[in-house]
């Protein structure tokens, strides 16, 4: 029993050990290459432990954490994202003449927090994971602040994220307290029974639930909790933006979905109404504001708001259809979105470094003729975000439509179509800019050979986008089996 428990927690243990190793090594020898290599190695080792964990699933490791196929899938996704971020960070910070090594320690702790969040089955671990990830992120966002010449406004972004994130953490905590006061338990799976025992739902409980939803919505950057997104995306170094867009969202989404389904909160009318409003507003606002952006990072920020709105449609559908289908759809869409975002930020990161970021729309002019490969990656990402067939984004959109039709969410589907139509415009605009004739530019970063790590991330993620779009059947089978637990 205990040996199984240890195996079960192996991924988390391995991540912790790697963090300590990276930290200790930094104390003795500061070497950017060594530390980055150790980080990637440690992350890989943690990723590979899933082979051992798989046979003992599912198992509840103490009251706090549950390791099942679902959480393992998201943990693996998170670690893959972290590996990608580490690979992008190395070339990005290479010319950064201040100490770089701590960045990797922060990356490891943030990843650990994200994995804990994805596995949590209890409000305590939920808060623990969220804070661990959040606190590491404040520092990561503001990391280049001591540089003589930093690419963007890391301090502004860091402080903004700190204040707003701390505020929402407080709100979430208060929400948890209210829920606890009402039902007397903090375990997700004990909530339904406790609710039944407590009888009628009082307003205090509902307010508590909504406060928790607000906390999640902040991390997922859903309107109206989205205000931080564009500024922080723009101000943070690109690898950190990639982390925010992928790892942080995936972890939060995993736990939110589990909480909503396990506690049956999704069946509360108030919750579905609030989620429906947030989804519709996020889709429309996200897409409309993305139209106005001249900065690609901000554009991705608004597009991520819209995409999380799309995702919410599948979650809301869970109120009427079997939870398993919804979990399957959410997992697929998140996977697709994860791969697309990582790939997109890898392109920006490949062209940028800590002193100059290559993120204005105008910077991408003629990229297709200057460096076809990098631009082809970005075009694939944009087409996938727009939901064009042959890409993962299309299968994801297909899931939204399927679940939406089955649960008859006609209003949200209309919003989805309107939003996607607007979305097409700004995705195509970027593609069109890349297709313009190139101007000769002596300082063209796309002309020099780009870092190997970024190439690896771009190649792997593009391959994944196309593979998932052309032959999704194996992945769908996997997701179907992990969703069967709900």
């Amino acid at each position, binding site marked *: 029993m205990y040996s199984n428990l240890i195996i079960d927690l192996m991924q988390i243990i391995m991540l912790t050990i790697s963090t300590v190793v990276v930290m200790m090594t930094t104390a003795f020898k500061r070497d950017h290459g060594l530390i980055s290599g150790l980080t990637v190695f440690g992350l890989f080792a943690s990723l590979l432990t899933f082979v051992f964990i798989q046979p003992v699933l599912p198992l509840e490791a103490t009251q706090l954490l549950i390791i099942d196929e679902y959480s393992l899938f998201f943990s693996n996704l998170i670690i893959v994202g972290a590996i990608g971020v580490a690979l992008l960070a190395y070339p990005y910070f290479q010319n950064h003449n201040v100490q770089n090594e701590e960045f990797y320690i922060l990356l490891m702790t943030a990843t650990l927090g994200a994995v804990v969040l994805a596995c949590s089955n209890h409000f305590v671990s939920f808060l623990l994971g969220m804070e661990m990830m959040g606190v590491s992120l404040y520092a990561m966002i503001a990391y280049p602040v001591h540089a003589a010449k930093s690419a963007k406004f890391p301090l502004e972004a860091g402080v903004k994220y700190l204040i707003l994130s701390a505020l929402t953490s407080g709100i979430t905590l208060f929400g948890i307290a209210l829920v606890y006061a009402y039902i007397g338990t903090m375990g997700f799976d004990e909530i339904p029974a406790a609710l039944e025992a407590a009888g009628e739902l009082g307003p205090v409980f509902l307010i508590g639930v909504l406060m928790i939803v607000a906390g999640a919505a902040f991390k997922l950057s859903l309107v109206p909790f989205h205000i931080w997104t564009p500024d922080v995306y723009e101000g943070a170094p690109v690898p950190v933006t990639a982390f925010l867009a992928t790892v942080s969202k995936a972890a939060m989404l995993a736990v939110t979905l589990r909480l909503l389904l396990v506690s049956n909160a999704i069946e509360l009318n108030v919750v579905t109404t609030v989620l429906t409003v947030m989804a519709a507003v996020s889709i429309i606002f996200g897409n409309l504001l993305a139209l106005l952006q001249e900065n690609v990072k901000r554009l991705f920020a608004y597009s991520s708001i819209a995409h999380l709105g799309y995702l919410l449609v599948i979650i809301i559908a869970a109120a009427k259809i079997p939870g398993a289908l919804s979990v399957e759809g959410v997992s697929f869409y998140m996977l697709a979105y994860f791969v697309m975002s990582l790939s997109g930020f890898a392109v920006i990161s490949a062209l940028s470094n800590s002193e100059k970021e290559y993120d204005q729309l105008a910077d991408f002019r003629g990229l297709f*003729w200057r460096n076809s490969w990098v631009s082809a990656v970005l075009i694939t990402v944009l*087409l996938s975000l*727009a939901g*064009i*067939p*042959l890409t993962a984004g*299309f299968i994801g959109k*297909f899931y939204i*439509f*399927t679940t939406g*039709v*089955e649960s008859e969410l006609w209003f949200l*589907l209309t919003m989805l*179509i309107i939003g*996607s*139509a607007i979305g*097409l*415009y700004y995705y*195509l*605009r970027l*593609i*069109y800019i890349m*297709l313009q004739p190139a101007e000769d530019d002596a300082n063209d970063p796309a002309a020099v050979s780009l870092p190997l790590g970024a190439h690896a991330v771009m190649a792997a993620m593009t391959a994944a986008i196309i593979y998932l779009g052309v*032959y*999704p*059947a194996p992945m*769908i*089978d996997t997701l*179907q089996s992990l969703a069967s637990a709900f």
Partner: protein
Amino acid sequence: MILVWLITILFAGGIGAWLSEKRNPELPRVIALATILLDLFLVVLMLVAPGVLGLDSASQAELGQTGEWLILSSSEWIPRFGVAFIFGADGLGLLLITLTVFLGLMSLGSAWNEIKERTGFFYFNLLWTLAGVIGVFTALDLFLFFFFWEVMLIPMYFIIAIWGHENKEYAAMKFFIFTQVSGMLMLLAILMLVFFHYQSTGEFTFSYFDLLGTAIPDGFGFWVMLGFFIAFATKLPTVPFHNWLPDAHSQAPTPGSVILAGILLKTGAYGLIRFTIPLFPEVSADFAPTAMLLGVISILYTAKVAFSQNDLKRLIAYTSVSHMGFVMLGVYAWTSQGVQGAVMTMLAHGFSAAALFMLAGGLQHRIHTRQMDKMGGLWGVAPKMGFMAVFFTVAAVGMPGLGNFIGEFLVLLGSFRISIAAASLAAIGMVVAAVYSLIVIQKVFHGENKNNLVVEDLTTVEMICFGFMMIGLLWMGMYPQSMLNMSEPTLRSLGVLFFQ
């Protein structure tokens, strides 16, 4: 399997053409030519000696289908949602595949000397568009159909956005958004259809054969049908969804206009015949008067708009909408003559519109303008071009003896039985057509050559292309029965009303 090969060859040829540019910029067009000729050879083989290729009777039986499908094949794709690779071609499909491959060759001919920049990527897009269109004409799984519906869109976007004329960004964007948004409505409609089928049978499937005759709950039928209708009516296009077409056609490079007008518009008509009406027979019958009205409005309104254009390519683009109005009218009359006429119009308009766009594109390539008031008296300097222009204009107007006449005549005959008013109004369209067509000849080729334009006459490659298209139109006009015989079994099985 032969159909899969047709598509695969084009996909592979496209990649080959792209990669070959590095070796030699002249090489992509040769590879493209070889690819299309190989496809044409296979298509001719299918037409002439279908036995050689072997009818796939096993999979016909498996899908519960009988003889009218000449070729049918099926294999799994995403079993979770009942999505499968089902490809099939019957008489109608074969006619349209032939049209596609043939016009693909013509557009290659028009690109031969015109496209000098980034040839590899151009021929890649050209071949992939053709592959997407053949996929649309052969896919019998609704998911697969939608997949190809979108696949043909992106390469076309690139063709307009990269090699287009002065206002290409606007035109390419408009084209993409119109088609994509209407496509999304169709996706929603497809999923609703699949879901209703699932509700009544407990089986998830996208197979066309299974979905035929799905029971749709009251009140939803019209909306589901409308999703399909809007997608196809946008592509066709018909008023009020025609807005994208004049921009896309006039801004696209010549080969792009040829494919757009010749082939892509036909996918809309095909969709109406194959999917919208057979899947929703009752709702469509109720909707038919509205659709026929839209067809008539398209014929008359765009004919009038065409008349007032000064831009040669825009004018031809508007006439396309007008001719497609006949297709809409014939299809929704749903009588044998009406639909047969629509099919003939699709084929004949494919040829005549492609030829006219090649002429207009050739002129623009030579004198760098599409404005008709800057032209005039070109017959004197380019007599061959003048002759071809007259021939194809007259064909488009509906001169007896040429394909377009057969098509439009049959449409009028077929729709007359259903609605005398619609047929009579549409007939006026044929008169207006003569007016706007002849004015082109007058403005461009007659009169005096005010600006002393020197125009190089048609090249050999162009003459060969036009020659083939003349033969095609004459064949259709003189011996239409050969094509009507091919499409008849299809139309019977789709439930078109035959009066005998």
